Structure formats: C-alpha cells, structure tokens
C-alpha cells in the first residue's frame, strides 16, 4: 500500500492550517459566506439538512487498519458513533460541529488521510476497482495510476474553480467494477497490439438528471501520456463548459453540445502544447508508487478448514455470495456486507469499524477497501481463514450473505439527510430488503442490483440499477419512478423507464411484482434477471408491473 511521503504529509498539514485559518477568517468577516462556501466544499465540508457533513476521501477505496480505527475514533469523539460509506468510496460523517472540523482534519492527517476535493467544483477523489490488486481477471492494478492522478489533481491551480464537479475512475480489469462509462473521465487499462500498456479514455459519461454513457475519446493512450492528456481534457472543459446553468455545466453536456469531434480536436491541440512540459518525473514517481503496491506475501497452508466449513449451510450461503475469485487460487476476496436487512445501507458503527480493522490485520494482510456499492472488502484472505473470519463477523451483524443480491441495495441518503432530496430513499431500501428476507426468496432470485436515488441528481445510480428507483416530489407527495434493465458494468446500459410512478407505500409491492414476473419467465435458475430482461424486453415486465396495479385499483 501507498504510504504518505514527507511531501504528502507536509501538504496535508499545511492544508489543515489553511482551512483552520479560513474558518477563523469567515468568523471575523474577512471572507464572505459566498467566498467561504467553495473553500469549505473543497475541504469536504457540506451544509446539510440538519448540520454540517464532512466527507473524507478514501483514495481508490484503499484503507489500512490504522486508518479504519482512526475513523472509528472520529465517529465516537466528534460524531454519533457511526459513519456512512458512500458510492464514491468515501466516508461521510453527518453530525460534526464546525469548530471541531479542524481537529478532525488533524486526526485524519495523523493517519495519512484528508477530505480534500471530496466536494466542490474541482476534480474529486479518484475511484478505482475495489478488487484492485486481487481480482483474478485483472490486467494490471489500477491504484498506482489512481494515486498518480490524486497527486496531480490535488490543489491543481487551474482546476479549483471548474464549471462543475469532475470525477475520474480507473479500472484495470475487462470486467468494469468502477463504472468508468458513467464518469467525467473513465480510464480502462488496456494493452495495444504490441503489448504496450495504456488506456482507453472515455469522456463525458455521467448519471444525474441527464444520464449519458460516455463516448471513447481516445482508443489507446500510451501510459506516459496520461497526465498531459487528462490536463488537456480538463483545461478544454474549463474554458468550454457552461457556467450559466449549473444543470448544464457537467462535461457530458459540453461534449454533447460541442460534438465529440470538435471537443477531441481541442483536447488534442492542447495536449500537443502540454506534452513537452512533462519531462518524465511523473513516470519516475509512478514507478515508485507501483512498487508500493506490490502484492502481499501470500502464505501457503492447508485448505482443510475451508472445505470442512462448506458443510455448514450458513457458512456456505455466505461463501456463495460474499466471496470473489482471487488471483491466487488459495485466496479469496471477501465482501463484508454493510447491508444487513433493515439497516441503513453503507452505515458502520465505530465498533464494527474496529472489528473490521482487527480482522484485516489478523486475516487480511492489513488491507481494507470501500466499494462503490457501499460494502467493505478484505481483498486478500486465505481460504483456510474464512471460517474463523465468518465466525467473527457474525455476532457483529457483519455476516449478511447478500452481496450482489436483491437486498444489497445502493441508496443515497435521501430526504432523511440531504437538502437536495425530494423523497426518502433509505426507508425504501430497508423495506425492500426486509420484504425479500421474509419471503426467503433472496437466494432464489440470484444476482440483482437495486439502486435508489432520492432525487433527480441520481446519487444512488438508479439509472444503472437492474431495477432503478427514483424518488421525486409530485406536488408535495413522494412518487417513485421505476426503471428496468440498467447496467453499470463494461456493457453499460441506462435502464428503461416503465411508466407512471408509485406512491411511497406501493414501491415494495411493485418491486415484488417485477421479481415474481422474472421468476416465472426465466428459462431456469441460471438465467439472471438482467439476461431474462434482455431476452424478453420490457413489455412483459411492464404488464406485470401495471396490470396488477390496475386490478388492485379496480
């Protein structure tokens, strides 16, 4: 794992000092509220419905146990004893007090963490595949590149006041777990015909109120050209992006309105001017970073305890859903579900954070990850240790066997916390999870991604949910629109709108009707919901959704 260099550490300390001074200057009137706002946002501090919210960066989702324990300490000392892991691999605290924020930032700096550029119209925390460095299907670990981009984008003088926020994601696998096609810049690590490493560069994807699947702007970008090329894209966007309407200000609109060809030509022109500026220091640094991400020292030991445990149905169910193949066949990637039925998706208590830190130390080569699906990953666990790990997770409410299943729901904070939200999201997720748990249908349904957003800004990624749910405000009443067939992987597809929305207390029934229609229509249990939907199209699902609703109404 990457550890802060002296340069990083000094930078973060300096930033804490700057922000502390900014808070004081706001209080003494040197800074107006309007001037202070972007400064607090570029340090991750939001003003939410009830209080401030501090969003802390977990670059490319990677944490060590010491950092996780520090987050637990912060939750207990300055918040309400828990934290919320987000869809962009960050963690949010919902109740900090403004005077405590500089202390929290200092505590983060102590363990090599920060909240820089987790908000505001800047380049945000760079995200990456949460299985990076462990996944069996990986071409290359994307995290060194993500770390390089983190350093390049941090406090970039040109790009702190962009037209709008800017998000970059990197994946090193053909199976895109980082949703690169829904990012402002998506980078897919590939090799060209001569075997040289590089990137397919995607630009102008995004969800939100105008969802777009990002087009490819460069089929193959040599690895050494990454920074000047990204700088050219963001500079072009900074000049061309609209500043008259915040809902038309994202790069997806810039690319769409100007046309990809014109945008590409401007980027290439800028790139030609920038390329000579990079004399190789970035590549030398990248090589150093790559060494820091060397794989752990894998151990060899008998797998007998693992095979023995598979006879236990509870362990078996958990192993079936919560493990993913590791590049070392004796190892597994473990997903710890933060989606216990009826709990708030993505929340973890301080005690749970400490336990996960301890278990990562004991069984997981001291590594943890945050996934954009709001779960915690232990990327390197020897299969022989899985029974003991499972046994330790269970009493803490962390052994829910539902990864990738219907109750593994992504939901934004919704109207319970967010000022933008127009409808509740978390209670909808809780009710759906409890319904299918009670029906005991979850494992029979198989892979199913439900994603819920509490407003049109789509923080819950509903457009790419197999079943997407969008909560809106219709004349003061919450109304939920359902989309079907969305997919956030390398085959990215936006879900189809079904028709009129449903009231708050009708949503769970509506989801159940869709699911029951799928169970009736699938060829056999191996045909997933998404495959069945793609085979049959929306019509039979829509008729199941609405005919029955009409029948009930009649």
């Amino acid at each position, binding site marked *: 794992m990457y550890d802060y260099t002296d340069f990083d550490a000094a930078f973060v300390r300096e930033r804490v000092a700057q922000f502390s001074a900014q808070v004081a200057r706001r209080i003494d009137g040197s*800074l107006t509220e309007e001037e202070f706002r972007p400064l607090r946002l570029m340090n991750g501090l939001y003003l939410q419905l009830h209080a401030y919210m501090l969003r802390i960066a977990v670059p490319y989702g990677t944490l060590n146990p010491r950092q996780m324990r520090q987050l637990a300490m912060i939750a207990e000392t300055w918040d309400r004893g828990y934290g919320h892991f987000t869809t962009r691999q960050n963690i949010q605290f919902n109740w900090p007090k403004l005077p405590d924020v500089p202390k929290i930032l200092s505590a983060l700096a102590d363990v090599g963490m920060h909240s820089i550029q987790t908000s505001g119209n800047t380049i945000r925390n760079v995200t990456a595949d949460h299985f990076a460095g462990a996944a069996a299907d990986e071409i290359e670990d994307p995290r060194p590149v993500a770390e390089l981009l983190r350093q390049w984008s941090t*406090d970039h003088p040109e790009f702190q006041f962009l037209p709008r926020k800017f998000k970059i994601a990197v994946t090193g696998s053909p199976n895109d777990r980082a949703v690169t096609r829904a990012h402002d810049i998506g980078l897919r690590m590939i090799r060209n015909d001569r075997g040289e490493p590089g990137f397919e560069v995607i630009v102008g994807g995004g969800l939100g109120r105008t969802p777009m699947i990002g087009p490819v702007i460069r089929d193959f970008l040599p690895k050494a050209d990454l920074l000047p090329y990204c700088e050219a894209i963001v500079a072009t966007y900074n000049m061309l992006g609209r500043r008259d*309407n915040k*809902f038309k200000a994202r790069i997806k609109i810039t690319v769409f309105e100007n046309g990809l060809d014109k945008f590409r030509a401007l980027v290439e022109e800028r790139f030609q001017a920038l390329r000579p500026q990079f004399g190789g220091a*970035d590549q030398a*640094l990248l090589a150093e970073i790559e060494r820091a991400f060397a794989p752990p020292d894998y151990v060899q030991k008998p797998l007998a305890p693992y095979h023995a445990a598979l006879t236990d149905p509870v362990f078996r169910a958990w192993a079936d859903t919560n493990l993913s193949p590791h590049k070392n066949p004796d190892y597994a990637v473990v997903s710890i579900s933060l989606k216990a039925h009826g709990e708030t998706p993505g929340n973890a208590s301080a005690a749970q954070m400490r336990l996960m830190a301890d278990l990562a130390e004991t069984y997981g080569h001291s590594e943890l990850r945050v996934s954009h699906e709001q779960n915690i990953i232990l990327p390197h666990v020897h299969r022989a240790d899985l029974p003991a790990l499972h046994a330790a997770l269970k009493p803490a409410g962390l052994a829910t066997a539902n990864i990738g299943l219907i109750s593994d729901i992504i939901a934004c904070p919704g109207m319970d916390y967010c000022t933008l939200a127009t409808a509740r999201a978390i209670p909808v997720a809780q009710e759906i999870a409890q319904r299918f748990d009670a029906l005991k249908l979850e494992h029979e349904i198989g892979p199913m991604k439900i994603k819920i957003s509490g407003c049109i800004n789509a923080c819950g990624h509903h457009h790419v949910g197999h079943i997407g749910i969008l909560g809106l405000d219709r004349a003061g009443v919450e109304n939920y629109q359902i989309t079907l067939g969305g997919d956030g992987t390398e085959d990215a597809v936006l879900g189809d709108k079904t028709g009129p929305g449903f009231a708050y207390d009708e949503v769970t029934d509506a989801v159940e009707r869709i699911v029951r229609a799928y169970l009736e229509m699938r060829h056999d249990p191996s045909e997933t919901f998404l495959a069945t939907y793609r085979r049959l199209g929306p019509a039979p699902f829509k008729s199941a959704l609405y005919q029955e609703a009409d029948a009930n109404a009649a």
Partner: protein
Amino acid sequence: MPHDSAPDRSPLDRVLDLPPLAPVARRVASLNARYRHHGATAVMERALHDPEVGRIALVSSFGAESVVLLHMLSVMRPETPVLFLETELLFPETLAYQRDLTERLGLRDVRLIHPDPEALRARDPDNSLHRRDMDACCLLRKAEPLERALSGFDTWITGRKRFQGGTRAALEFFENEAEARIKVNPLARWTKADVQDYIQNNRLPRHPLVARGYPSIGCAPCTSPVAEGEDERAGRWRGTGKKECGIHFVNGRMVRGPVPADAMPAPRPVLVRNDEHAPQEDTADATPAPQPDAPVIVTDQGFAADDWSHPVTPLAEFSGPTGPVTAIEIGPEDDPQLLARHLPEIDMIRVRFPSFSDGRGFTHARQLRLMGFQGRLRAAGPVIADQYAMARRSGFDEVEIPAELARRQPWPQWQRRANWRAHDYQSRLRA
C-alpha cells in the same frame, strides 16, 4: 439639509474617471447591434463592464421575478448600486424579502430610495392619495424619487420582458431614454419559462407573495392577486386601465421627464451594506466622504498602487500594436489564441475575472504562458487571497483587486499564500 449637487457616483466609477460618452442614440444603436445575438447573461455581463454604458445602476422592486437580475448582478459585480424604491406603501413581505435577498446574495450597495418627506407631507399627508389620484401617487412615490436617484447614472438596468406583453412586446436590450440615459433590459427576450428555470436552477428564494397568487407585486393598496388564466400584471391597479406606474415609457411617449438634478431636493439614499467592515455612512445627512478606492495590485512583495499608466485595449478591438507600449485585456469568453502572432510585441495582458468562482482566467494564464508569452500577466477582478497561490502557479505575475476586497482581506492574508512554490504537486510531476 446639505445639498450635494455632485452626481452620486459609485466608488469604482470615481476611480475610473471615465472619458466623455458619445450621444445616447449613437451608443444605443451600437450596443444593440453588438449584442443582438447575445443572451441575457451576456448582455448583463457586458453592460456591467462595457465602457459605452458609463455609470450604471440596477433598479429593482424586489418583486416576483426580481431575484433573477439581482442574482446575476451578485455573481458578476455585487458592488453595483441597486436602487430600491421604498414607496412606504409596500407589503411588509417585500421589505423582508429585500433584506433577506440582500444578505443572501451579498449585494453590497442596495440603496433604499424614499419619497421626499416634505413632498409627502404636502401632497399625501394621510397616505390616501392613491384612492384619489393614482397617477399622482405613483409620481410622488416612484417616478420623482427614482429620477433623483438616477441623476448620477448614465445607464440603468430593468427587469422588463417582452412576454409581459402590452407596452413591453417589442423591447430591445438597450433603449434610448430621452437622450439622457440608456436603459438596459437584459431579460427582454426571456420567456416565462426561462425565468422559472433560472430561479429553480439556481435555487433562488421566491417572493413570499408569489405562492399566494401575486405574479406581479407593487404597492400594497394597488396590488391584488391574479386568478388563473389572467394576465400576470392584471392585479396591478386592477379595474383602472392603468398599466404602468410611469417610471417606464409608454408607446415611445415619455411619461416622466428627466428633471435637472439641482431643481429637486437631493436624494437621501440609505446605504444597506453587508460588509460590516466598510465605513458606515451617516444615514441622516449622506454626503459620502471621499474614500481611497483605487484598485490594489498584489505581488509577492505586498500591496501596491497600480503603476500601469498606459491604455489597455480589449482583445475584441485589438488588431495590432499601435504605439510603443501595448496592453491587452482578455475577458472570460475571449480566445487568447487570437494573440498568437503578436505575443512578443505585447507588454502586459490583463485577464479579467468576472467573479472569484469563475476559474477560466487560470486556464487563460496557463495557455498564454504555454504560447510563450513573457510579458507582464495580471489577474484582475475579485480574486480572493485564498486563490493567490493558484494565480501565481497558473502563470500570473500579479493580481489587481478592488479596494473593498483589499480592505476586507489585507496583505497578511495574501502573504500566507505568497509561499506559492511550496507544496506544489504539479511542478513536481512536470519536471
């Protein structure tokens, strides 16, 4: 009451010492031609900075749709004077809304324009004139006070729109007001939906009476709610045939003539300032004391007065060097590429920041340096101390800030960021 016959000029204007302006008709024609294809924000943006426009104020009723222009102004140049006609018959909601918007938008120079108290005592001692003679009431409480307040300005901005129909259906962006003044209507071509979108998209607070059925809001006695399907302005002077209060022209006929400033009692503007650190005006007898309002130049060495004495040519008007010293101003929409051939002959480039939150100027600076510009590069506008290191790293040599900002953020706050070479990730990566 002391009589100050000098025009009431904004601090910025006093410094700029503008050259004499061409006749209004000629300037209106040239401005309309120049901005024919522009949108509202561009017209507003340029109106606030175009030298042909002269000294400018926004006249706002803080009514149903006023928040649009007030918001644009707050983003582009919040120190611009805003004239608010406090007729003393307004809804209490309007007064509360005015205070709230002033605070939220950070408007720095909202002036409450009251009717002249002596005229009020003489002509409407019991506030009943509106029942007897509406036009006389509008004249007393709106037209005359506004005329006095506008006497120091060359141009005023209004929120009138074509869709409001009737007398407003053929509005141009720029109007010639009796050869005396220019009237700017940035929203002339906006539709009702544009107004709604703008308010919604920028999450701006509405006047509380809008939700209660008042789409157009004037004085309380003469404004009533409007039923669905009725014209927006149907609730104004309902049942009288009166359509306009008289501060605007009707059918090209002037219903209010410019009054020589010295024929009227002096205006008594009440300055409402958000900025607690600015010297407070004495509201009883406002004779603004002269202030040191020249812009301040910030460099690594500290604050200094501007030592640049040569003219600065806007990029749009530049075709090649004309004298021994050449300086160019680049606006946020300009393309520095146009200067490519002339860079070695240019001594100074001034990059204008319309607001601190518009980061285009940083990319302009970097582009100019990448193109090989070696001359003096200046960021000009309300750039804040926290952006000083960004400006220097992007290639600027210095920052030119308004005096107000320099007072609020004195040198020590900039000095903290004068170590801009330290903690610089990008220069490390570029080596």
